[in-house]
């Protein structure tokens, strides 16, 4: 019996120790403790009251873990979204077709030389002024040949860079970036460009980094440096306090923010899956979702949120679309590719799998972008025509088609099953296989497939060269079409919406005629928030944080 008593005693000690261990240290990554904002009143062991009713804390639900807090390297959407709380860009985008000055303004008279005027009252949180040197340093660092960056395309229009946005050999700095005075610089592009294009990619897409924090670090080492992983100096409405890995990001307001001190003191961005997002809303623990593709509520569960009193659920068209990609080396006959499009009842996918909350795509663009051709209708569902086109093309119905469906998106997986069934119905032999996304991407890059499903996200600017241009870095379909290449080049040479739109109209029509990729559907995005929050997700999701400092609770 004494043995039993000992065991019981040890068990009690084990229990008490484990709970104590969890209570004392579990929520904090020790190394991040010293990342707490200098001078902030909210050290991690003296956190503010999270009671929502006093209006000083905003709880946001996020379904993807943020990956990076490095302004030069932003591979994930969630990391970029969170960074916008504490790093500002020169411009903000309240809507898909409007820009407003934030950290600076961007003006031009000839669409080639752009003048940046940095906001006169903008300061970093350590008291240093935000200057033209910070902007020039940020652009030069992104273009540095040793930089680990995801922002090459954002600076690839600047004189002195190659098509990837990397500084040309033999140059020490970008000749297209010249500092005029403390608050002014000019940016010269390689050729005239649309103001909207440079405003979106450079003005809005690049977050300005503090030169005095990063300049002492070797460019190749920035990504893994403390300055990048534990940011401590900010220009945005909020200041980063800590990130508890895959759990939450805590930020506090920047009282000296140049556009006005934020109304809400604390922001917690909590990481959770879509199901937890719903239960947290039902329990009253969240004020809003991050929206877009990073605050995803399963479409079949949206109704649950719409039934909650005090919640506002808004539906917006998305810039993201789902496509069936085609190995154009294998299927080099346009009739065969068109036959695939006619074989699919895409409206059924939208009606049944998305509960009508989405759209069938006619060509490459979704209705969120102003460049979508409103007169272009999707190809009709006509399996008989599909079969006829295949016969006309002399297609071998007995050769199995290797069809790959990536896992991780429930609706897409269900759509994949339907597509397989529709292909079989027109007499084709199909081998469907499912792989996780990294595996599927590797297969696509090696053209080790016949057909497959893939999602693409678009910018407001309609340039899709990387996906469909001959040799484009994400052209995993072996598309090589001189007409597409020519239209894309013409489109990029245009300097206004009016002269670019007809070119992209032609591109959409040509893409439908040649069908190198089958557009399927685009699911709606949802903005969910409590009704007493002034602020939240906007129709143009990427620009939703443009008025962050004005958000408040009624």
């Amino acid at each position, binding site marked *: *019996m004494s043995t039993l008593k000992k065991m019981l005693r040890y*068990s009690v000690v084990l229990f008490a120790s*484990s*709970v104590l*261990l*969890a*209570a*004392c*240290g*579990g*929520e*904090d*990554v*020790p190394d*991040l403790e010293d990342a707490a904002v200098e001078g902030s009143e909210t050290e991690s*062991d003296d*956190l*503010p009251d999270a*009671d929502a009713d006093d209006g000083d804390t905003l*709880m946001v639900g996020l379904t993807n873990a*943020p*990956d*990076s*807090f490095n302004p030069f390297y932003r*591979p*994930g959407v969630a990391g970029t979204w969170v960074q916008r709380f504490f790093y500002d860009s020169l411009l903000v985008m309240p809507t898909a077709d409007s820009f407003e000055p934030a950290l600076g303004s961007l003006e031009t008279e000839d669409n080639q030389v752009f003048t940046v005027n940095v906001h006169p009252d903008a300061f970093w949180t350590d008291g240093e002024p935000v200057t033209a040197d910070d902007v020039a340093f940020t652009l030069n660092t992104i273009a540095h040949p040793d*930089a*680990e*960056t*995801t922002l090459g*395309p954002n600076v690839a229009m600047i004189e002195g860079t190659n098509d*990837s946005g*990397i500084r040309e050999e033999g140059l020490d700095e970008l000749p297209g970036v010249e500092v005029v005075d403390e608050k002014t610089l000019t940016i010269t592009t390689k050729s005239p460009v649309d103001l909207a294009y440079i405003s979106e990619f450079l003005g809005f897409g690049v977050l300005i980094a503090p030169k005095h924090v990063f300049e002492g670090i070797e460019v190749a080492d920035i*990504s893994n440096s403390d300055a*990048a*992983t534990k940011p401590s100096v900010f220009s945005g409405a909020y200041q980063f306090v800590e990130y*508890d*890995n*895959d*759990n*939450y990001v805590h930020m506090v307001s920047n009282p000296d923010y140049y556009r006005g001190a934020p109304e809400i003191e604390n922001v917690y961005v*909590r990481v*959770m899956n879509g*199901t937890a997002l719903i*239960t*947290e809303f*039902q*329990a009253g*623990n969240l004020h809003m979702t991050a929206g877009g593709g990073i605050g995803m509520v399963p479409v079949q569960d949206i109704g649950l949120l719409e039934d909650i009193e005090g919640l506002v659920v808004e539906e917006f068209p998305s810039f993201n679309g789902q496509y069936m990609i085609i190995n154009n080396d294998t299927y080099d006959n346009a009739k065969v590719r068109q036959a695939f499009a006619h074989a699919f009842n895409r409206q059924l996918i939208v009606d049944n799998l998305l509960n009508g909350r989405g759209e069938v795509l006619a060509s490459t663009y979704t209705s969120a972008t102003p460049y979508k051709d409103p007169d272009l209708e999707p190809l009709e569902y006509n399996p008989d025509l599909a079969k006829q086109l295949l016969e006309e093309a002399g297609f071998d119905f007995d050769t199995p088609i290797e069809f790959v469906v990536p896992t991780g998106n429930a609706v897409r997986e269900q759509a994949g099953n339907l597509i397989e069934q529709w292909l079989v119905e027109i007499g084709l032999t199909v081998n469907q296989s499912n792989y*996780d996304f*990294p*595996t599927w*991407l*590797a*297969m696509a*890059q090696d053209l080790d497939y016949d057909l497959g499903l893939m999602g*693409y996200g678009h910018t407001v600017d309609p340039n899709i060269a*990387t*996906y469909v241009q001959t040799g484009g*870095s994400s052209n995993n379909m072996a598309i090589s079409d001189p007409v597409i290449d020519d239209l894309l080049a013409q489109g990029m040479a245009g300097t206004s919406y009016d002269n670019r739109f007809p070119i992209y109209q032609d591109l959409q029509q040509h893409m439908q005629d040649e069908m190198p990729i089958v557009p399927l559907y685009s699911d709606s995005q949802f903005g969910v928030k409590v009704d007493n929050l002034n602020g939240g997700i906007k129709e143009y999701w990427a620009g939703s944080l443009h008025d962050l400092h004005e958000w408040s609770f009624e």
Partner: protein
Amino acid sequence: MKKYIAKRLLTAIPVLLMISIAAFIMINLAPGDPTNLYVMPDATPEQMEATRRALGLDQSYPVQYMRWLTRALRGDLGISYSTRYPVLPILVSRIGPTVALMGTTLLVSYIIAIPLGIISARKQGTWVDTLLTGGAFIGVSIPNFFLGLGLIYIFAVQLKWFPTGGMLELGGNASILSVLHHLVLPVAVLSTFYIANMTRYVRSTMIDVYGENYIRTATAKGLTKQVILTRHGIRNALIPIITIIGTDLPRLVGGAIVTEQIFQWPGLGRLTILAINQREYPMLMAITLLSAVVVLLVNLLVDMMYAVVDPRIKYD
């Protein structure tokens, strides 16, 4: 005994080395390049190479492994591919929550299950036994995610007695009471299975023990039922029960992947899923190594416990 423990610890070193090599090979055999997850879809080859270099993936596999090993021996388990934070502090920060969750679960489960198993065995064939074995059958059959969501809906969403998830109130103080409050629902879910499972084992073991000759002898000697149970019954039933506990204990760090996901519990199970989804190779190596160490230590602990409860077992 000390000599035996030292010998076991020494033999653990090559075992851990082999496990690390096997884990490294298996992780890197997975198709696809993890670099793809850490660049934009339109990344150029130069940008891919820069990221590959920053992640240390530009070296050959033997070089990558040797680098990892030499750093690991110095206590550096590498960096997270996504956040670029050191792996070790992240791993350490997840051990506490998982040990709290699983430790509490196992403790609660054993405290409830062992008496229930004994009662069920003693009342074999009665309505009490039928009720307990029926309950145990339901307990092992009910899926965790279903029970978890059900409990959240009733006790967190409707009644608001407990939080829906997490381990602490964000913005509040990190008190033990707060942790206990957050522990109730996930522990209830996990314990349901463990209680049911252990009850069945204890019942079956006790029924076997009650059939042994020494129990009949003790009964014939006129000992009371209480003395027979405590001095002869439970003591002899402990060895198979310890074996079962030995298989449960590694779960202290293995975590409960589904339950941690449902309750947003910031533990090792959730970290493992994230590491798998994001191809976080250094994190996966660290988690594998930690699991291996725990399994080896628990096996040693169980062998020592055998000697404690059964004097016939000697290791020297």
